[in-house]
């Protein structure tokens, strides 16, 4: 089987995750307009990547596992992107309304 990360590595990852949680919380208190949600989601994606790559050990896994993980997120992205594209493009035609 593949290599096991060290105790130290896990604790460091944990620390980064906890710090980023704090950052998310405090940034949310600052008014940044539309950037608030962008930053919050970026941090969330970053945290997710750490959990996936290190806690779930995907970094050391086979390309097949990486492919499946990527496919999962890609498919969710398809659902979101194509559905949202309907709502966002309704206003483009005269007479079409965005709810």
């Amino acid at each position: 089987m593949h290599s096991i990360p060290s105790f130290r590595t896990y604790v460091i990852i944990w620390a980064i995750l906890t710090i980023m949680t704090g950052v998310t919380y405090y940034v949310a208190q600052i008014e940044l307009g539309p950037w608030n949600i962008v930053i919050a989601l970026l941090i969330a994606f970053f945290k997710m990547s750490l959990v996936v790559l290190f806690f779930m050990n995907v970094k050391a896994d086979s390309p097949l596992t990486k492919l499946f993980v990527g496919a999962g997120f890609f498919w969710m992205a398809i659902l979101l992107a194509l559905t949202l594209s309907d709502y966002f493009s309704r206003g483009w035609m005269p007479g079409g309304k965005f709810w």
Partner: protein
Amino acid sequence: MSTALEQPKAQEKPNYLNAEYGWKSWLFTTDHKRIAVLYIISISVMFMLGGIFAMLIRLELLTPQGDLVNSDTYNKFFTMHGVVMVFFFLVPSIPATLGNFLVPMMIGAKDLAFPRINLLSWYIYIVGALFALAAIVMGGVDTGWTFYTPFSTTYSNTFVITAAVGVFIAGFSSILTGLNFIVTVHKMRAPGMTWGRLPLFVWANYATALIQVLGTPVVAITLALVGLERAFHIGIFDPAIGGDPILFQHMFWFYSHPAVYIMILPGMGVISEVVTCFSRKGVFGYPFIAGSSLGIAIIGFLVWGHHMFVTGMSTYAGLYFSLLTMLVAVPSAIKVFNWTATMFRGSISYETPMLYAFGFIGLFTIGGLTGLFLGTLGVDVHLTDTYFVVAHFHYVMVGGMVLAYLGGLHFWWPKITGKLYPDGWGKFSALLVFAGFNLTFFPQFITGYLGQPRRYHAYAPEFQVLNVMSTAGASVLGLGFLIPAIYLLMSLKSGKQAGDNPWGAKGLEWETASPPPTFNFDETPVVTEEAYAYAKHEEEPVG
């Protein structure tokens, strides 16, 4: 897995059927072959139930007036027909029956990766089916199999939640089957069985499994939200609080369109196997057929909006959904061309499975082409919600999928049961099915184009002649389904013993006994030749 043997009868080697007797050995089995048989029985029962609703529909439509039943009852007929046929017959059918039986054997494995999950999958299916039956017995559902909101969440007075729960549960059966197939194909292939040597039936079931795993959870959550909204009277599809019924349709069709590829891809896999065997020729363009299965699976997720062109969805979204719909026809067409090229200069014989394959190729082509009409934005405005749509999807689902299922059942029946059925009756029934099917559904293209709407229990009098033809055809079709049920069951008792390979076909499943032993092979096979390595009689230049 116990292999305690009874005394083998004089002419019967130990096999998976006689390895153990008694109901416990069947209900607690983890043998993929026995589970496949359990599914064959359950799915046949649900098919008959769905067929009864079809007959009730066609009976009502003999006359233009809504005189057999009132409109609410008619709504229940077509809803239950759809729910039962889509979720409890079409979606599970080939993967859970033929797929379960054959995929491990075709790759040289002893079983699927997770045999206990396989059994669980069947139990989950049964529980789901019981919920659906409960909904029917308690009074039915009238929302259409599509459960559109807000009718399903707020206004319908029927047993929507019970039916939705049944479908939700059956969805998990589908997910677990798909999960099992994916892991099996990745991890359990015999030595020498590379991806490039996999039988096309395995490719088809693998692509199907990907769709099952990626799409089904979305309809699960969608129906869960519908159920919660209906139960708690507050929810997210309710326009009264700013909810959007179109969002329901987006989420519903995100699964339900790929679902039709779950239904047809395994059927196409069957056709690949049958055509190559009865043409005595390796499949033309193997990589393209394999790749097109994956292509259909992937592109099939990008086209769901073509069910929603007239809902008020953005026209721009409609434009690219239409474009992608045109694109998804390409891999299907590739298969049809390749099957035809396989037959070209092959040594063709016309046993029952091959007759079903011919029927499939013709009828699926018609169904597929009419899908393109519907995928064209302007034309769809005229055709949507008419009988044209009904005819289209029955051509692909029945003319395609059911014919493939019957063809596959006939092709592998000797392997599954060790018995031969009378081929004369087989051919007769196949022709009956083909004739009855066309008589039933071709008139519906015409009435739909002329304006007969779907889901109505009455219609304009000028459509009566065509509707009567359709009902007559349905009776013939029903007979065509009934006769095989009889002779196949009779063959269990009085059929001739099939040898290991009555068709002389290539494939690992034919290299073991009929019926196979519990662990499929006496020794793990080692694969040394390509798939479908039929002897070539002459090298044909391909034009």
